[in-house]
């Protein structure tokens, strides 16, 4: 750091006040502007988190950690257990990911690696159009097409209707599929063509080049795509609301039992989107319990989003030195 503040490119650490101001004056306004904007976004998020934390304080005081671990929600007797809804949200998202991630990545491979350039742009545009369809439309499609079909598929489990956690999961899979395809396709295309060409020059066929070069090198981008889609799945409200059945207190009797998936359930979002939110407004404790659900949802989505950007952060083309000491298939 140069003692002479006027020639240093960075603001000197302990300059006289005047020279620091001079340094700030030279600080291009675009930096300041973007810093402020970024800071505002971060502050807005933290503020939101803080607001929901404060507003939900009564329920934490009332129920303590059993708010998170309780499996019964009867607001008339002031029992607030959020676990069935956390379960519903995670189950629905897990089903969605399990269906959409393999399918989405496979389609991305097809679009990025196999489809001729001429057809790739139309295909990608179509996929992005699908990603932009409003979720209420997807929800109605679920009601029209999916509900009856799922009731037939789930017949062995004797569901009371076609509105089940599994239905919501399948619908969500359809909804997040375009996101996964388009982001995965970007990740695959960011792998330099020279890498594939070098592998082909070593006698690898196209499939081997995809398996050994494209997919491993796009891995972080693919994981990020899936995580961002997961973020969307966790937060999706209206489409899930329309087909999930909105049955409170669905909790598997046995650990890892899949039966509740074939029954109506409740997710954090479907609970919050329902009429109970209006009812709750008059009762501080009930209202706090509802906002607590929002807080949990916010933290879940933020965690997944942060994980997604952390994975996507390091450029996927050439592995970082630490990561790169591995074998190509590792």
């Amino acid at each position, binding site marked *: 750091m140069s003692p002479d503040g006027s020639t240093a490119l960075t603001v000197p650490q302990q300059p006289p006040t005047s020279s620091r101001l001079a340094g700030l004056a030279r600080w291009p306004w675009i930096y300041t502007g973007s810093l402020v904007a970024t800071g505002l976004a971060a502050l807005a998020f933290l503020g939101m988190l803080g607001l929901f934390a404060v507003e939900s304080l009564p329920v934490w005081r009332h129920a303590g950690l059993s708010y998170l671990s309780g499996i019964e929600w009867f607001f008339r007797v002031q029992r607030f257990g959020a676990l069935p809804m956390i379960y519903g949200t995670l189950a629905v998202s897990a089903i969605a990911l399990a269906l959409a991630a393999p399918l989405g990545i496979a389609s991305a491979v097809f679009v990025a690696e196999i489809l001729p350039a001429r057809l790739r742009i139309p295909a990608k545009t179509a996929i992005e159009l699908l990603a932009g369809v409003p979720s209420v439309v997807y929800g109605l499609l679920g009601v029209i097409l999916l509900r009856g079909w799922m009731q037939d598929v789930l017949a062995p489990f004797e569901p009371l209707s076609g509105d089940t956690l599994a239905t919501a999961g399948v619908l969500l899979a359809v909804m997040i599929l375009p996101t996964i395809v388009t982001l995965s396709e970007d990740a695959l295309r960011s792998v330099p063509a020279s890498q594939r060409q*070098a592998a082909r020059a*070593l*006698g690898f066929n196209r499939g081997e080049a995809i398996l050994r*070069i494209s997919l491993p090198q796009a891995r972080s981008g693919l994981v990020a795509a899936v995580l961002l889609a997961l973020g969307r799945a966790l937060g999706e409200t209206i489409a899930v609301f329309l087909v999930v059945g909105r049955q409170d207190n669905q909790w598997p009797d046995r650990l890892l039992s899949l039966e509740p998936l074939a029954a109506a359930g409740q997710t954090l979002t479907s609970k919050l989107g329902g009429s109970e939110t209006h009812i709750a407004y008059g009762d501080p404790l009930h209202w706090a319990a509802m906002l607590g659900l929002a807080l949990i949802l916010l933290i879940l989505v933020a965690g997944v989003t942060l994980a997604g950007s952390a994975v996507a952060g390091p450029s996927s083309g050439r*592995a970082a030195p630490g990561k790169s000491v591995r074998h*190509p298939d590792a």
Partner: protein
Amino acid sequence: MAEPALHRTPSSSRTVAPAAGSADPTATATAPPRPVLEAYGLSVHSRERTILRSIDLVVEPNRVLGIIGPSGVGKSTLLRCLNRMTDLIPGLRVTGEVLWHGRSIHDRGIDPDALRARVGMIFQQPVVFPGSILANIVFGARRVLGLGKRRWHETAERVLREVSLWDEVHDRLDQAANELSVGQQQRLCLARTLALDPEVVLMDEPTSALDPASTEAIEHLIQRLRQTRSVVLVTHDLDQARRVTDAVACLCLQDGAGQLVEQACCAEVFANPDCRAVAEDIADPNPSIHGPATHNQGARPS
């Protein structure tokens, strides 16, 4: 005839001497053995134009064939025809014949991937894969030769010695390959190709991105490679062509498409007036990649 200096310049004798001693010095004059690769009437068309027109080319065993010509004449495309890398470029149409040990590489029975394993290729910019030096070397050999893990180190040592990289990296085979210098990376790429034990190595301006020391190392290598294999070397550097090649194919633009002017030993090629024009074009002391296009007119045979 051309002055002998054109054939093997004194300045380059040190690079040439060992190889010239090991190879049969009269080979250029005797009848060639059966060629490894031959091209007859090879033409390449893109959607818009003809890139190469009726090229005849012979790649003999244990010889270094240089390909020279101005920028954009299709040298790299010609090289890619020889191992069917042209298949990977959409819109290219290749006509004519390329024979691999007398058999057309466009035959139904020919597996282009197997062909590419036998006809290795080095690019202008080294392309190392993420992963360790060792992983890079065995990358192709594992899959093509089914090289077992027990033989990885043995193979690595053999090919790294062959490309004179062993002394520099033998104690850090597990380190990331992309931390090597560009020159080392290029030699690593060559080692990776040699691990497949190819009969022919195609090199597309392998030294144009390298510093002089690495360039010299690669040139030494080419000289050693020709003891066991054939090399086809696309180069912009005429001195390099004189130093390391046994024969040179000279391409120039005629009616918008690359055509072969002559394939012969270096001295004869540089004696050909058309080739001399090409040579003057690319031997510009300022090594600009894009030579003046007007010169190509001068290369047209009268």
